[in-house]
């Protein structure tokens, strides 16, 4: 990990290594309860592939952190197995799992220097002296902190502390690195910078990373795959694009990105498209409905897929008359709050150039493609 040439680095950037599908971690029917009554994690089945960046995303209390703690060895599953490279590790204490862990508040040791912090895991692996020094320096260089080894953690900024925690978790070449909301304490700009940085290091070294966050945009930016947790279950496990474009249920549709979720009923099919009836009786062409449920359905429609009627909307299947309730200027785009389908509220995000003329109270025509209207049964 110490000598990676610039060319190799460029190569990595241009064509991210496609990981061979090889299982690093497997959760098999894992359950966890703290009080013996309610399950924090219900019947978890999840595999993490070697070399991938997997994010566990969910609101607080969804079971994602508990899952991470079980993998790290700080919590024991109530039932089920956790396999690390094919071996069950439920009974293995954390110090023998060979897993790097980056904690929410970094958990740097305040009484040690940065170099001592980073060198800490090496001492328990029999690496001492010049070799330990070299590896510590390499790790610090990798996170762009070369030369700050003699500082105390308290003398570093939040972002630098975050980098030290990362270097410390990587320096001993662990099998995988776990991160528990590592960027939560940083301001927005630094957080976005670190997202890119962590992803860069992960891809460069080909490390398997399991990342926990409640920030959906962070998950979309960084991950190879995302597991959306809610109420102790994985709601959907897929790559970011699929997760955004094809949410499998109402929770995922609402949790990932801005969305309009409107209730509707099944009305039939036409030309291979589903037709649903909205609250006020309007019919809408949709895609995605495959189940048997006929009532209590939901249409998911992204704000940016709701377009103003015009040349671009000619081939769109759906026309939606609406009334503007509110308009928010966001710079490049304008966010419109609309009333349509009787008294339903919709949010549309249109380019600023088109939305500039829209004023509250205006009646306007909106349109959308059937492919962007996703019917969800759950």
């Amino acid at each position, binding site marked *: 990990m110490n000598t990676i040439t610039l060319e190799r680095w460029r190569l990595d950037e241009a064509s991210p290594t496609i990981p061979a599908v090889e299982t690093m971690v497997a959760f098999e029917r894992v359950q966890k309860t703290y009080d013996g009554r309610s399950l924090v994690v219900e019947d978890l089945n999840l595999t993490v592939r070697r070399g991938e960046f997997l994010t566990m995303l969910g609101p607080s209390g969804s079971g994602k952190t508990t899952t991470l703690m079980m993998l*790290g*060895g*700080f919590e024991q599953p109530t039932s089920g197995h956790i396999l690390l490279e094919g071996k069950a590790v439920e009974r293995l*204490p*954390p*110090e023998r*799992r*060979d*897993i*790097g*862990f980056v*904690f*929410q*508040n970094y*958990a*740097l*040791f*305040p*009484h040690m220097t940065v170099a001592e912090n980073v060198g*800490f*895991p090496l001492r*328990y*692996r029999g690496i001492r002296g010049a070799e330990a020094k070299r590896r510590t320096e390499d790790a610090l260089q990798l996170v762009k902190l070369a030369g700050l080894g003699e500082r*105390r*953690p*308290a*003398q570093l900024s939040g972002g630098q502390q975050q980098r030290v925690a990362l270097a*410390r*978790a990587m320096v*001993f070449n662990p099998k995988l690195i776990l991160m528990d909301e590592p960027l939560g304490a940083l301001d927005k700009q630094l957080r976005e910078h670190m997202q890119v940085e962590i992803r860069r290091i992960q891809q460069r070294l080909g490390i398997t990373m399991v990342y926990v966050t409640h920030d959906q945009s962070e998950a979309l930016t960084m991950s190879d795959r995302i597991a959306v947790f809610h109420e102790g279950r994985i709601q959907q496990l897929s790559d970011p694009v699929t997760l955004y474009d094809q949410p499998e249920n109402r929770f995922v549709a609402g949790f990932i990105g801005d969305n309009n979720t409107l209730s509707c009923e099944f009305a039939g099919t036409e030309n291979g498209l589903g037709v649903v009836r909205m609250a006020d009786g309007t019919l809408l062409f949709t895609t995605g409905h495959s189940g048997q449920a006929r009532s209590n359905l939901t249409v998911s429609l992204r704000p940016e897929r709701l377009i103003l009627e015009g040349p671009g909307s000619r081939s769109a299947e759906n026309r939606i008359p609406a009334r503007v309730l509110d308009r928010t200027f966001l710079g490049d785009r304008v966010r419109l709050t609309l009333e349509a389908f009787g008294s339903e509220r919709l949010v549309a995000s249109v380019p600023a150039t088109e939305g500039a003329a829209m004023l509250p109270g205006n009646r306007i025509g909106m349109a959308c493609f059937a492919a962007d209207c996703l019917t969800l049964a759950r």
Partner: protein
Amino acid sequence: MTQTLCLATSATRTSRLGAALRRAERPNRLRAFALALPALVFLIVTFAAPIGLFLTSAVRNSEVRAVLPQTVAALDGWDGRATPGEDVFTALVADLSRAKEDNTAAALGKRLNYESAGMRSRIMSVVRHLGKFSQEPLAPQFAALDPVWASPDLWAIIKRNASPVTPYYLLTSIDLGQDAAGSVRQVEESQAVFLDILGRTLWIAGLVTVATLALGFPTAYVISLAPSRTASFLLLLVLLPLWTSLLVRTTAWVVLLQTDGVINQALLALGLTTEKLQLILTRFGTVTAMTHIQLPFTILPILSVMKAIPEGQMRAARSLGAPPLFAFWRVYAPQTLPGVAAGCLMTFILSLGYYITPALVGGPRDQMMSNFIATYINRDLNWGMAAALACLLLVMTLSIYLVFLRLVGADRIKLG
């Protein structure tokens, strides 16, 4: 030229700004001072001033000056080699006649007796003999009362104590004394008790500190890890003794430790011992009772530091490969150091001043510095000695405090 002017202007502006700031903040400072004033006055009047005044009696030396003014004046011309001249004896008789009327002779005798054993009776016999001295010469008549009156050493002591301050009490408190010529030397072994008492005081305080740390650290650790409801209950148990009077707790230990007390009865009943153990009036009993009383003072600072150590620290250490004991020793324990130092300092300093517990639970060999101070004040009425010992204790306490402060201060910086 322009530049110089510019600099000057900026310097003026800075100083004007500083003055403005001071002016603006003055009302706040005055208000803060006014609020603290009652407490400050109270402390100075009732605490700082009396104690300061009391401590000066460690060097105060008024008796000889007050009672023997003429003798002192007459001794001014004495060379210190032989028995002083007749004028000195005449002055002494005059001074003591006045002292007899004023009832101050006994105080003088007592004071001089500290310097040289037998002085009190010598003075008193002269006082009793006052009417019976014939005219001249007085020196042989004095020598007839006690041959020591002819010795220049005796007169040297009187002359030396004419000074308004004396190093006598302070020197004695560290087992030093002055010989007749005034040079400092160690006192005889039979008289040298105070360093022994000081050493004993430090040793007992040290034992108590170590014992409270050994018992308190694990307790604090358990409380810091316990769920909040359990933790507050445990904390209540720790604090409970503090709400009971010190005297009551000490008396409870007397009840427990006495020869026919609960502990001995229990040990006998359980067949663990065959005869009653001497627990009361021993060093063991003293240290046990003091440890019990001091325990909360050690636990609380350690606990507050432990509570501030994030849970993630141990987890991080273990995730990085440190087995639990190593993680504790290398990561957790060093971070508790400020609390450990503060707790130990508190207990050590408080233990140095213990009085009632050693007095009730300890034997004669377990009495600490405070007991001797009390004895000098209450029984011997020797305030000079009491003040000197108090000074010694105070200096000891302050220097230990400074040493701790430096150690812990340095550690703080290291702890970041």
